[in-house]
């Protein structure tokens, strides 16, 4: 058999063997059979010692060509088989994507804190600082400097927990923080603060009363400040919390530390002022109290009331949250039922 015949034979054999190869294992064996060190193609160039240089060259060339050809055939099959096996594997890896997810337990804020942070962001953007004060407070700051001397009948409305004689108490309002802010500001410069904080009064806990509750109080002291400035500030709060179409109104009221004092009402968002249970048929809902800072309070804190004026306002955070989210039991904020979390762990509607 001459060399050409041998090559033809190998090619023929490979062709038929390729047809029968359908997995990568067999293919690897085939590769060894033809291209291995002792493979059929390699064998062609063996025993060339008694051949002329020309013949050697010719055989070398032919066998190289064959090698390339065999390689191409095997590689192409290899790719085919690999693709098929990958497809098979992928098919076997198919999962049921409808099975439930792995729960990543993200933490969230208390409902009340969510509302407070919303208000804080609003007031921070208007240049108010957010400050805190002690909850065990002096009677002096909680009442006396706020124009509520001992024996003042208005103290009745704030039945207070005393902790030491008649001098220390659990603060019944966040207003002492206003006093502290004014007293501590030795330079007597303008003031813009809000102080969200815990407050305490002697109330039996039920759906609408809580011995512990939260106020968000604000104080602005500057020059030429009027009730109209308070109204504008309140409008911003009301619309941020209860929607852009809120109307607001002031009603005369009484607080010992402001004069004039007002109640701050918003138009009922529940009935569009047609009258409903929420607004008790009036079309208006009271959400806070406010007023022009009383001259005695300014003078008590070293701000000359002939020069300085200001306004102060206070909101009950629980009341705001109850109105905003439709919560009917104030204890909801303090039981911390984690089942509520999912409903509140989301961004607020614009």
């Amino acid at each position, binding site marked *: 058999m001459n060399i050409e015949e041998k090559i033809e034979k190998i090619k023929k054999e490979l062709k038929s063997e390729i047809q029968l190869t359908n997995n990568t294992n067999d293919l690897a064996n085939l590769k060894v059979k033809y291209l291995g060190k002792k493979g059929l193609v390699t064998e062609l160039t063996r025993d060339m010692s008694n051949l002329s240089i020309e013949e050697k060259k010719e055989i070398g060339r032919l066998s190289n060509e064959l090698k390339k050809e065999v390689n191409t055939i095997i590689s192409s099959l290899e790719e085919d088989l690999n693709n098929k096996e990958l497809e098979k594997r992928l098919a076997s890896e198919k999962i049921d994507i409808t099975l439930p997810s792995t729960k990543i337990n993200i*933490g969230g804020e*208390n409902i009340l*804190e969510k509302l407070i942070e919303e208000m*804080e962001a609003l007031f921070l953007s208007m240049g108010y600082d*957010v400050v805190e004060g002690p909850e065990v407070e002096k009677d002096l700051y909680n009442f006396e400097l706020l124009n509520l001397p001992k*024996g003042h009948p208005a103290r009745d409305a704030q039945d207070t927990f005393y902790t030491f004689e008649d001098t220390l108490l659990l603060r019944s309002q966040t207003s002492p923080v206003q006093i502290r802010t004014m007293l501590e500001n030795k330079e007597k410069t303008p003031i813009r603060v809000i102080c969200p904080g815990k407050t305490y009064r002697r109330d039996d806990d039920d759906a609408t009363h809580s011995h512990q509750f939260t106020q968000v109080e604000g104080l602005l002291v500057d020059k030429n400040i009027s009730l109209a400035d308070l109204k504008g500030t309140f409008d911003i709060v009301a619309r941020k919390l209860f929607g852009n179409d809120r109307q607001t*109104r002031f009603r005369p009221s009484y607080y010992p530390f402001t*004069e004039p004092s007002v109640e701050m009402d918003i138009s009922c968002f529940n009935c569009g002022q047609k009258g409903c249970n929420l607004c008790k048929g009036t079309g208006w809902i009271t959400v806070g109290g406010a007023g022009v800072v009383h001259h005695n309070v300014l003078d008590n804190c070293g701000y000359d009331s002939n020069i300085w004026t200001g306004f102060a306002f206070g909101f009950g955070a629980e009341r705001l949250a109850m109105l905003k989210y439709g919560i009917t039991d104030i204890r909801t904020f303090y039981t911390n039922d984690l089942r509520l979390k999912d409903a509140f762990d989301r961004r607020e509607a614009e």
Partner: protein
Amino acid sequence: MAISMNWVQDYIDLTGIDLKNLATKITDSGVNVEKVIQNNLNNLVVGEVLECKMHPDSDHLHICMVDIGSGVHQIVCGAPNVKKNIKVIVSLPGAILPGGIKIKKSTIRGVESNGMICALSELGLEEDTKENREKGIFILPNNLENGKDIVEYLGLNDTVYELDLNPNRSIDCTNHIGFAYEIASVLGRKVTLPDITTSPIEESVKNHLSLEIKTPNCSMYNAKMVKDVVIKESPDFIKNRLIKAGMRPINNVVDISNYVMLEYGQPLHFFDKDKLGDKILVRMAGDNETIITLDRKTRTLTNEDIVITDGNTPVCIAGVMGAENTEVDSSTKNILIESAIFNSYNVRYTSLRLDLRSEASLRYERGLNYEYSTLAIERACHLLEKYADGKVLSDTITYDNIDKAKKIAKVTKDEVNMVLGVSMTDKDIQKSLDNLGFEYTYANKEYTVEIPNRRLDVEAHKQDLIEEIGRLYGYDKIPSNLPIVESKKGSYIGNVKYRKLISKRLRSLGLNECRTYTLVSKEEDNLFKTDRKESIHLLKPMSMDKSIIRQTLIPSLLKVYEYNKARKIEDISIYEIANTYYEKDKEETKIAALMRGNYISNTWNKNSIKIDFYLIKGVVENLLNYLGLSNRYQFNEAVIDGIHPGISCEITIDKEKIGYMGKVHPNILKDDVYVFEISLNKLMEKKIRPIKFKEISKYPSVSKDVAFIVDENKKSKEIVDTIKKTAGHLLTDIQVFDLYKGENLDNNKKSIAYSLTFTDTSKTLSDEEVMKIFNKIIEDVTKKHSAILRDK
């Protein structure tokens, strides 16, 4: 406070005024009319109970046969005070009561009932309280004719305003004259005061009484005497008006004192003059002096209480309650009337201490107008003369130490407009002042205003005037502006800033924020007592479960845990940041967390991550690293109250203890619950450095693994410390990758395997260099910790 508009119309003409509309106007100008009660009642008649027997199927219902004039109705009645031979108010089928109850024929436990016998609270004449319900049905006088329409008799066709008063207006609007002035200021009408004329007899009270005031706490005392009074029922109009104001008629004399109080706001006290004697001495009580009050109780007094005495013996606790010894009773003939002003603080303290707050004591507390004290006593005489057949003695015995300085304040138009932010004209301001009935003069653009004594709440200051002027002008006219102030940025100041920072981090680590009560029980205060200081107890707690201010937040978190667990919530990771207090008024803000269950959970493929000590330790480390405190904290084994002794540690920063962490002791809770509590104050005292970029080495790292067999009690940290010390700066990371106990190891031994990473930022490390350090590490660890190098 309930105001009868029929009554008010004695003092102000309301012709042509819609009372509902008026209520809105009054509310808008600052006196809150909470409810307008306009009754439209019918089918209410007088009935006489002819027969009354027990219902066979009930222990409290009665079956009554009631004569209503046109016939006899069988009515089932549940009131305890129903009995034979009394006249009652019957609402017949078809009646609709003020509360909305529709009366119809019905069958009550098998017995037919044709109507209802009414209590005053059911007719809206009394508040619907437990106390009032217990009083039962209202018994009418016997002289009323059966079947008579009772609506007119009870004055039920009146309009009643229910006022919700602020403390300032509780002085003048808790009486009908004062409220008439408020209406006058809203409508711009005039008030006419009631008739106080009498026809006194010649005999003077001065021959019957001497008065001595021996305390500065009585600033005014007026006394008048009325002789030969006939005690009987009051005329209907007095009774009706008292009922509507929430007071029960008793007899003409008592009713007149209440009636005058509701007119002027001045409480009066009537003594039986014959029992009293000829002297009145007002003084402070002696400590432990006693008095038997009208309610037959012996009261022990203190030197803070003002008493009226007959010279020696107390006959009245001033402003609070009279004594039994001088009580007006059915045989009383001669009356001494007191109309006085006492120090409001004393009355307040006394009435609070004795738990004897009444309509009268509240009025003394709020303050009284001395002008009305004088008028009210005359008015009482007028009524006693008219309705109790009394003879009024001439003269009044008076002690008067009132400061009568006029209350004058000045204000300008500009000041009004500046504070209110409005643009009122002088005409507007004058209209407000005129309506208020405040006298003023106007000169140099300034109003000089005299504030009448009836407005005790208005002080002599321009701010008070501005408020009065403004509320009548109308707050609806106030525009909406924003304050013109210097722009600046708002910031979180002090602890708030750190609380927010830590809160955000803990939330992102999967913990839910809680808000719990500051006040705890003694039992809760007794938990987790390590490093406990003196607790603050409330002086008068409302209940024992909220009597102490907490020093630790963990018991509160345990309660939240129990609450949620009871609701089948398995995975609970919560935290709270709150202030704690101790030693009178010392404050410490604490961060506490509680974790239990799965941190990440999958319900079906067992791929959950369970919370254990090392997980909560990871949370703490993450937080501390975030706060810039990496490499400065340590966890040291410690015995902590309430924590599992073997799974417990204290947390230190720069060697200072800042908190603790561990598993809750099984004595407290059987579940695998992990907690930590850290002092926010201590955390925030630590100064930290600014963030600086640190180059990551360009050269490859070399990793080496090593395992040691050590005593099972050996702490990993000790070995790590040795490794770090020996390795020096080239060691850039060290991790535990295996912990093994059991087969092939002695019982009391364990194997810990570490993976060490070496990096040099300036060059590629040679194997030789690394091996030199590595071998030294092995040498040091085996020597120092009696460790054996474990073969690969």
